[in-house]
């Protein structure tokens, strides 16, 4: 079976590179074809990469607390670019402060994200979800 392509990167002005590298390594290890865009990735870059590589999902990381602002509008732009129904996942440290994550997850769902993950989520969780979402 052909490997599924996952586009990943750290969104916005965020330069936290370590988690991104670990995630890319783990996804590759789990059998995905990973296109890792690295740090400081704009929404447009996620979309351009997903179009060219025919990606099965986009996995967005954000560690610096501005994730909500950075992720807002990504679904709409995907729709506009013809990436219909592509799974969008977000994780890391998406918002500032000790907020109830159920509320955060709701806000991300409202922005069109397939799933948002709280800090401390294990790689296995994300990988299992990705297999499920891309099947």
């Amino acid at each position, binding site marked *: 079976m052909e490997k599924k392509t996952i586009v990943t990167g750290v969104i916005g002005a965020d330069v936290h590179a370590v988690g991104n590298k670990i995630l890319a390594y783990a996804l590759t290890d789990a059998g995905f074809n990973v296109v890792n865009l690295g740090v400081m990735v704009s929404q447009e870059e996620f979309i351009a990469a997903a179009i*060219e590589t025919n990606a099965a999902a986009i996995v967005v990381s954000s560690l610096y607390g501005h994730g909500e602002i950075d992720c807002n509008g990504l679904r709409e732009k995907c729709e506009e670019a013809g990436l219909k129904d592509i799974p969008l996942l977000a994780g890391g440290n998406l918002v500032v402060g000790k907020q109830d994550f159920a509320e955060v997850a709701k806000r991300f769902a409202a922005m069109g994200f397939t799933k948002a993950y709280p800090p401390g989520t294990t790689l296995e969780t994300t990988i299992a979800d990705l297999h499920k979402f891309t099947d």
Partner: protein
Amino acid sequence: MKYLTVDFGSTFTKLTAIDTVQGAVAGTARAFTTIDTDVMTGFNHAMEQLENAIGAFHYDQLLCCSSAAGGLKMIAVGLVPDLTAKAAKMAASSAGAKVMKTYSFELSEKELTEIAAVNPDLVLLCGGTDGGNREVILTNARLLAAVDGNFSIIAAGNKSVDAELETIFKTAGKTFVITENVMPTFNQLNIEPARQAIRELFIRNIVAAKGLSKMQALCANAIIPTPLAVMTACELLSKGTRSRAGIGELVCIDLGGATTDVYSMAKGKPASGHVIPKGLPEPFSKRTVEGDLGMRYSLAALADALNMSDFSEETAIPQARIEAWIARCTAMPDIIAAPESEELFIEESLAKKAVELAVERHCGILESAYTPLGEILSITGKDLTEIPSLIGIGGAIINSKEPHKILEGALYSARKTGFMKPKAPRFYLDKTYIFAAMGLLSAIDEELALRILTDNLKPI
């Protein structure tokens, strides 16, 4: 050994006689290109002139390049503008083509009409990484196959659709070549196979279509597009040969009547370690060609690209007088400005602007973003700020009395800090118009070609 190189330009057929015993250029000559009737007429005229000047010249081998009959006109088609469409344009430019238009996504009805109107020699069709998007390149292949026109197609996209592309083009009876993807994996360029395919198709089909068959029969080597010969010379001059070092990284500017070509032989890595590189990685040997920046046929387009009132202020010449001169040049491309006239001053200032715009479009762009971690700089494209050598090689530069002034357009400007242009390069001129000839010669005698190139570079 004696070699004769021939460069069929759109206006002139230029000959260079090379004697390996003397290790130098024995003579040069030029005559009007006669591509509309028989190119051999112009060639014979130039040959007579050459022999009148240096005596009988019996050459052992003839080497030839051509940019006559519009050069190698190409259309580049990709998927995403900043990715495969950009890669396609880069591959075509570095093969010596004149890229008339670049398209992305599915071609529209209007774009297909434009393609038919441009009547290109070649269309480079790309799109999708290997295993990536397949729909768009397939749709575009079907659309292109239905366009009226005698163009050949080179497909260099997602390898997963190679077989389907072959069926589409075969059914339509198109001349085509399918080669490796220009971007096999995300953000990784692989333009060499496409470049090679363009070269082969030029040799196989286009030489004949441009009326160069008779000439080809006389040449030992294949006729190549002139910009490719110039690019080869640039590479040789920069990198050197096995036994002799080149001059290192450089930027060459060829300012002509119809186009402005910029060549950079440079890695282009950011000079400062604090700058994050973004976008598509660029090749060491990069060429860009600006079809809207030229001193005669494209002078009106150059004027459109300028802010005329600013230009008028900078030159302290009323706008009406500048526009009058541009109109005269457009009406009579043979016109030459009188020495020490106001027209000549306008001419030089326009030339400087053409160089400025062409280098701005070629070089990397620095952008700053304010983040919670402070200001972060990123660069898209090549950082050319530390380039040590800048070479003027076009007729409009080498025949000017003020080549230095024109080339200054290529320099970094404190008013436009985003453009990573050379800051303090040494200026040189290709005074004898030798680059194309040496690019051709390098296929046979690299050492001699490099020596002649270096000897003919004139510091200014």
